[in-house]
């Protein structure tokens, strides 16, 4: 009872916060000239033009997701499974691309791969690639995918890492008896964490699908840019909303496919015994390849794009100016991000539980319902929020006039994300752990506090970090709803980006990185000790 009430409470909470503004928007888009009409949907589905656009979006997203997996899974694997020089340094650095707005990464890459870019010249000089084709690449769908995948791989990396840390050694030991290292990884370890990888991939996919900055920078004709055009050239928010519909459809399809793929299988692996918590391998060749891989990755995703940032900063004064511009934003970012991430983690925890561990008949429905909000474009969410919350009445004004509205924005945008991650980590907790608690007559809260939460430790860490980074990076919705004086760092960055000296922009970007990495780093330390009881699955 306690259990169901709690879960239903969080479910209701999320529905109220997220459902109404979005429903409002879509309702509006169905309502034209005083009556129900499908004008805005009609040609989305019936014209060739949109077929092309949608397929282009799909290509963009899939390629990005695949690239992200190709980078993220090995990275996470090496971080979790072996130990090498600078491991933790790399681990922290690899968050940078996730922190920096894709738009900025895009600019960095167009800079270095553009005709005049040094990398382009390098390539054309040594690899005899015609400069045209290189810059053509970066301005193409695939260029965009490339940029986005670099932005998103840390997400998959961290999920992979923590999922791997949940795989108890005994399962690998029993494999190593008869199989080689590779066979075990291929046949046992990776399949065991496949749900996590898979959902990471899904998140990357949907994110690239609904990302706007990069496609617009590269002037790609995809759904998001179409939506934007409708919004900002034609001021036709209904049409724009209608265009978001295919996004949601695709998301649902992807999600359903995942649910099917995982049905029947079990990934309950925690609590099995073994010689140690989880296997770390110390083959020299493995360490070396780990080091090599991470170094190369580091060069590609960090050094190449961002060295330009560094060199463009000449004086220290620049930092002072940048700081002056951003100090308000810094505080806000960290505070809002921290609170937001924590809320997301809590809500995600319970929703994830509800959709993964209950016997509810509707739970698949619920998880789908929660998930679709991830596809709602930021602008739609923002405008929906304004229309819903911007009312003269006290309570509304109170929320709308304070950073409450920003938090609500975070919840709409990212609870689908956090609850998905949680759900997939919950998959790894055996039912029996909870049952054993229940028969002792423990209240569900006690079980949650003393059994589920500690066992979910890795999931919680991963979720918090990811949520935190995403919250800090949120722009589309926050921009529309933030009350004066509540701007966050990215907003500070983007509002001065246009027409301010490049070195200021660079300095701001670095500030943004620092301000995000610092808490994350601290959080790593805390999480090491906070869950003092070492859980050794």
């Amino acid at each position: 009872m306690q259990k169901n009430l709690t879960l239903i409470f969080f479910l209701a909470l999320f529905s109220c916060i997220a459902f109404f503004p979005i429903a409002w928007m879509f309702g509006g888009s169905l309502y034209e000239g005083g009556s129900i009409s499908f004008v805005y949907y009609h040609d989305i589905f019936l014209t060739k033009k949109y077929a092309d656009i949608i397929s282009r979006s799909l290509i963009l997203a899939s390629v990005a997701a695949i690239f992200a997996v190709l980078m993220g899974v090995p990275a996470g694997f090496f971080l979790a499974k072996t130990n090498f020089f600078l491991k933790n340094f790399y681990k922290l650095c690899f968050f940078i691309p996730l922190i920096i707005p894709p738009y900025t990464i895009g600019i960095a890459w167009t800079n270095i791969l553009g005709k005049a870019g040094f990398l382009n010249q390098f390539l054309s000089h040594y690899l005899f690639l015609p400069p045209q084709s290189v810059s053509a690449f970066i301005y193409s769908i695939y260029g965009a995918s490339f940029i986005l995948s670099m932005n998103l791989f840390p997400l998959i990396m961290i999920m992979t890492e923590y999922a791997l840390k949940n795989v108890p050694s005994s399962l690998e030991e029993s494999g190593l008896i008869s199989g080689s290292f590779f066979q075990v990884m291929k046949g046992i370890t990776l399949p065991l964490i496949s749900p996590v990888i898979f959902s990471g991939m899904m998140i990357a996919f949907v994110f690239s699908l609904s990302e706007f900055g990069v496609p617009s920078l590269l002037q790609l004709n995809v759904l998001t840019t179409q939506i934007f055009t409708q919004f900002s050239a034609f001021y036709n928010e209904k049409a724009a909303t209608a265009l978001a519909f295919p996004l949601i459809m695709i998301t649902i399809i992807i999600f359903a496919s995942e649910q099917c793929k995982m049905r029947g299988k079990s990934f309950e692996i925690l609590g099995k015994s073994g010689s140690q918590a989880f296997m770390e391998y110390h083959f020299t060749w493995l360490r070396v390849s780990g080091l090599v891989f991470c170094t190369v990755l580091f060069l590609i995703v960090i050094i190449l794009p961002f060295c330009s940032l560094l060199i463009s900063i000449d004086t220290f004064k620049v930092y002072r100016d940048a700081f002056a511009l951003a100090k308000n934003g810094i505080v806000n970012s960290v505070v809002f991000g921290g609170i937001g991430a924590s809320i997301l983690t809590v809500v995600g925890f319970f929703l994830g539980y509800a959709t993964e561990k209950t016997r509810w008949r509707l739970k698949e429905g619920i998880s789908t319902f929660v998930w679709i909000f991830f596809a709602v474009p930021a602008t739609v969410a923002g405008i929906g929020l304004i229309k819903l919350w911007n009312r003269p009445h006290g309570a509304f004004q109170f929320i709308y006039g304070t950073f409450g509205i920003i938090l609500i924005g975070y919840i709409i945008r990212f609870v689908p994300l956090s609850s998905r991650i949680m759900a997939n980590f919950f998959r790894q907790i055996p039912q029996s752990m909870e049952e054993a608690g229940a028969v002792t007559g423990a209240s569900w809260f006690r079980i949650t506090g003393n059994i589920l939460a500690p066992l979910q430790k890795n999931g919680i860490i991963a979720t918090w970090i990811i949520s935190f980074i995403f919250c800090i990076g949120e722009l589309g919705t926050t921009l529309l709803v933030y009350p004066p004086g509540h701007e966050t760092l990215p907003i500070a960055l983007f509002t001065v980006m246009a027409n301010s000296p490049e070195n200021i922009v660079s300095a701001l970007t670095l500030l943004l990185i620092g301000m995000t990495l610092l808490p994350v780093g601290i959080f790593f330390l805390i999480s090491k000790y906070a869950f003092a009881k070492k859980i050794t699955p």
Partner: protein
Amino acid sequence: NEVVVYSSEDKIFSEPVLKAFEKKTGIAVRAIYDTEEAKSTGLLHRLLAERENPQADVFWCGDPVRPALLETKGVTTSYYSPIAKEIPENYKDEGGHWTGFSARARVILYNTDLVSMDEKPLSIFDLVKPEWRNQVAIANPLFGTTALHMAALFIVSGDEEAKKFLNDLKRNGIKIVSSNGEVKRLVSRGEVKAGITDTDDANVAILDNYPVKIVFPDKDGIGTLIMPNTVCLIKNGPNQENGKKLIDYLLSREVEKKLAWDMCAQMPLRYDVETPAHVFSINAITGMNVDYHNVAKKMEEINGFLKQWAGF
């Protein structure tokens, strides 16, 4: 005792001005700025969405056309600032819904490493010539000042002319990029030889001492588009009175001068505000002779065409 202003003028230019106002009057200014990424339309959406229960008092807009849009949607209200008398008539809405002040203009920015003084284009119509093939950038004409520019162009040189011109540009492999900032970036990095952008962007490039120079196109032809900043008072804003005070301040000579001397190098609409050497005053350049209300209307008409022209 505060005033809420939404500013779609770039933050680094507008913030100092507002701060100055704060110091001068002691009225706290709570400002929200717009971002380049959203083509400075985020605030517009916000204003429209907040129509039922406005949060802002003043909207400081980078161009004279969006206020026209707001006017039609009934977001703004009319206010004739006493000080506005000094502003030339054609930079003001006779309905009083918006008033213009220091202006930007559309210019051709070219890279002096790639283009010598005597090859430099003097007219935008030069850009269809073969020597500029694949060497010109322009921002997406559906958005921002470029959209205005196109609309104005359609008015002054007739739809047929304009359409033909644009198609020629297209055929000449013009690069359509996301924003004027991008145009600036590409030109100054030498990705392209020249591009059509705004004075403020251009000027920043120069101050970042990239090898670039400005041309005010069609001096002795149709002239180029001049786009004053505008300011308008929001209907039922929370602090109407302070709003008016702020408007009066923004329209003052002092501000025009400040903006002229700032990096954005905005051109004062008053003839007698002294400016740094590199900043022309309005009368020094030939502006297109258009009425901004018509421009606004024209945009509505042509953006269908522009959409498919830009390939969206």
